Each structure stands twice: as C-alpha cells, then as structure tokens.
C-alpha cells in the first residue's frame, strides 16, 4: 500500500517488548497507508494490546521504530504522541466517571493545538455526541451510562482530538447484533473522514466488513499479513485461532 508513493501514516519496524522472560511483542513490523483500516488479529495473549500500548506510549519498546507520518515516536511520552495525532480507545473502557458526557469529550479536545475558542469547542462537542449516538446525553454523568454508551463516549473522546491515526482495542466486543451493525457503520464513516485506523478485533464479521488488510499475531510474532479475505483463509491463521476464539462470530 505504501507503494502508492505517500508516506505511510504508520510504519512499525522491528518492534520488541518483553515482560521479564515473556516476549509479548517480537520483531513486529507493518505499515498502514492513509485512509486504510488495518486489522490486528490474534488469539488472546498474542500481544495485540501490548503493540497498541507501545504505539501510544503507555509502554516503552525494548527495540524497534514506530513512525507516525514519518516521525519516529517510539519511546515518546503519551501526551506528545497524542498531540502528534494518535488517539486510541482501551480494551477495558476508560471514561471519566466523575464528569458528564460533554466534559469527557472536552478532555479529548482541550489539550490539542491549536486551541479552539469556547464556542467552537462546544459546537464540536455537540457534533461528536450526535455522531456517536449520544445526542441529548450532554449533562449525563459518564458513570450512569450503559456499557455501549460508555464505549461510544470513549470513542467520541478519541475523535475529539481529530486524530490522523486511531487505535481501537476490541471496541466492538460485547455489543449485541444490532449495536454491532451500528458500530460497524460508525467506524466505516470514520474512514470517509480520512482517519486511518488500526483495529484490534475478535469479531470476524466486523473484520470482514471493515478491514482492507490484516496482520495476525501469535505469541508476539506476526504470522500472517495480507488482504483480509486471504488472511482469514490462511491455514496458519486458522490453526493459531484453534482452541482460542471461534473463527467466526
């Protein structure tokens, strides 16, 4: 995809991180082109979340480079990476429970430069609430929201920063079929806005519907990479998933 000529939005090379003797991410490398949705698959414990943590600065890599729009961000503080245009959601949803929905989203945009005027910010917050399906919940404390609404709010906070790259860690997990359809449409609509996405996901129907390409991890290593349909029918991938997550949801 990077053969299109443009700098990839994300280029990871030789990424490695160990916890004690356990190598959670081992020599990982891949590229994500502008506007692409890249699936990051693999059984539980294969290192997907660790990879996202390395990209977003929660963890420092032991080795390797991570280039965001060409700039190496490996080992930078999270807040610097966030200001460079990377936003994410968390596998275990993290919203600011003591604040209302508006304030949660405001947290996402208040610290991005250039700063918006108060009026601009309020407009943007309102638009984001509507976009993720939380219109009318403005003053609602985040602690009162249902599980899916918490996920929506977390996504709105990530989008508030107008990210170039969005990392979604099992954002669709735990949704019922109708919520899932809405969620898939929502993520697809983000691509139309020019946001590049890395999607960690177990829900295979969503992966098929959304991802242009996928990479598959197992025990910290990349074991497959390619177009989604090809990767999902790859023998090694099916084997890695056996005994783990069902191959289809």
């Amino acid at each position, binding site marked *: 995809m990077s053969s299109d000529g443009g700098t990839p939005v994300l280029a990871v090379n030789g990424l490695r991180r160990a916890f004690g003797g356990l190598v959670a991410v081992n020599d990982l490398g891949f590229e994500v082109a502008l506007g692409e949705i890249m699936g990051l698959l693999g059984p539980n414990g294969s290192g997907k979340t660790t990879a996202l943590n390395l990209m977003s600065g929660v963890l420092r890599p032991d080795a390797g480079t991570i280039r965001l729009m060409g700039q190496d961000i490996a080992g930078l503080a999270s*807040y610097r990476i966030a200001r460079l245009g990377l936003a994410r959601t968390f596998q275990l949803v*993290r919203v600011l429970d003591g604040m209302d929905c508006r304030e949660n989203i405001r*947290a996402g945009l*208040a*610290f991005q430069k250039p700063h918006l005027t108060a009026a601009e910010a309020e407009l943007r917050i309102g638009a984001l609430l509507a976009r993720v399906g939380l219109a009318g919940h403005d003053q609602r*404390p985040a602690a*009162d929201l249902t599980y899916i609404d918490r996920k929506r709010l977390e996504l709105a*906070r990530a989008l508030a920063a107008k990210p170039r790259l969005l990392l979604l860690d099992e954002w669709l997990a735990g949704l019922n079929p109708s919520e899932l359809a809405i969620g898939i449409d929502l993520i697809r609509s983000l691509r139309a806005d020019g946001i590049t996405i890395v999607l960690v996901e177990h829900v295979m129907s969503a992966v098929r519907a959304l991802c242009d390409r996928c990479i598959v991890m197992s025990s910290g290593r990349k074991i497959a990479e390619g177009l989604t349909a090809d990767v999902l029918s790859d023998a090694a991938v099916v084997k890695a998933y056996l005994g783990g997550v069902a191959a289809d949801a």
Partner: protein
Amino acid sequence: MSARIAGIGSLALAAIALLAFVPRLGNAYYLALSISLLQYTVLATAWGMFSGPTRYVSLATTAFFGVGAYTVAVLGEILPWPLVLLIAAALGAMVAGVVGLSTLRLSGVYFVIFTFGLTELIRQLVVWFEVNKSRVLGRYVFVNITQADIYWQLLALTAAVFLLGWLIARSRLGFALRVIGEDETVAKHCGINTTFAKVALFTISATIMTLVGAIMAPRWTYIEPSIAFNSMISFQVLIMALLGGAHRLWGPVLGAIPLTLLFELLSARFPNTFTIILGCIFLVIVYMLPRGVAGLFERRSAPSAKTTQRVTA
C-alpha cells in the same frame, strides 16, 4: 452566570472588608484566634487546590510552612519585610519544584510516605546546618511586625488564594488536573503533560503554604526547628481539608473553621491526649463524611446517587 459571579465577588469583598476590622476590636484573644483561623483556612485551601483534583495526599504542609518560618528567622532582621516574603516564596517554590519532579511519578501511599519523610529530612538538614555551621540551635525573631499586621497579611493572602483558586479552576490547567484525578492514563492520551500540570499546581500550593509560615513566624519570638517544622500541622491541615471536602475550592474552609476552634479548645484542655483525640476525629471524618461537609451540601443537587457512591468508594 456572570451576574452570579459578580454577586459572589461583591459578597466576598464585603466579607473581607468587614473582617479587616477584627484587630480594631482590641481584644487580643479574639485576634489570636482569628489569626489561627486564617492560618488554617489558607493552609487547608492551598492543600485542597492540589490534593483535591489530583487526589494525591500530601503530608508536606509542615515542610513548606517551616521553610517559610525559617527564612524569616534567618533573614528577617537583615532585609526589608517584603523582600523576606519574596525570598521565602521563591525558596518554597524551588523546594516544591524539585520535590514535585522527583515524587509526582510516585503514586498513592508512596507519595504520602515520601512527603512525610521529606518534612523530617528538611528539619534534620536545618538542625544540622544550625548546629554545625551557624552554631546555634534556635533563633530570636526580631522583626517589627504586630499581631494586627500578621492578621492583615493573612487576610490578604486568604483573598489572593481564593481568587487564584477560582481562576485556576476555570483555566485549562484546572481542567487538566481534574482529568488527571479521574484517570491519569486517559489524561496523557488526551495530550496532557501530566507531570508539568501536577508539578505546577503542587508548586503553587506549596508557595502559598510557605508564605503562611513566613507571615506567621513573627508570632513567635524564638524559633527552633521543632517549632517551625511541627508535623502536627500537616495532619491538622489534612483533616480540615478532608472534613470540609477537598474537591471544592470552598470546601476546606468549612473544615478549617470548626476544627481550628475545636483544636484550640482540646489542646488547652487535654494537652496530653490531644494527638489521640486528633486520630479519632480523623477516623470519624473518613468514615462518616467521605466527601466532607461540601459533599453534604451537594447531595441535594447531586446528579445521581451512583456517582456519589463511586467517588466515595
């Protein structure tokens, strides 16, 4: 909204103007008591400015108070008073900056212990310096400052602290601190330089505490390290802020006033068992009023029982 701000502002101005007359009453006991009330009001409010939003429990109040008091003991006679205050504030800010940078990465109980240890460390350093270098253990404070002067300075500082706290709460820094208090990881991913925000507020809060120590120093004619660095102050301020409710700017004062009066009474009546009583009061507050007196006022307008529970848990 701005009408409300104007209302509260003019009310506050009127209150300050009225309070400025206390020394004119000519009653030394009331003046002394009022000084204590203001002292603890400023200390507890300054404590809450940092610890309220971040939920870091600091026991370093004494350290900064002591630095302020000792600066006066050393420089009070030599330099003009405003300059002494300025130097005290600068010293407090410097110590706070260094301490903040080295400790605000610590979390929870480690931070509590470190701040407590810090007080002891600074006191021992001062003792060592005085004994080995200055060859004195205590110092007489000869400055031309009356009790009324102390009171007025504290009153001005009180006004300044509330104004500053109000401005910070409305600022981007204030919002950043609230996000940090909610979830530091999320704060970082929102682009907040959490270390800077915490150190900045810790420094502001500590500078105010240092100024209180400096202003209060002339109250004693003789100062030695155990007086200036009395760790009881840290605990009392902590209890006051918790009783009042540290998550609101106006919370700590609600704890500072009743407890200053109570402590005044208790330390006079039961000087030997005072510490034990203090401990019991602390337990009662933590169990009965986890959100402080301010929390009681909020209950009526609380958005939901669920939020309140979560925050208290």
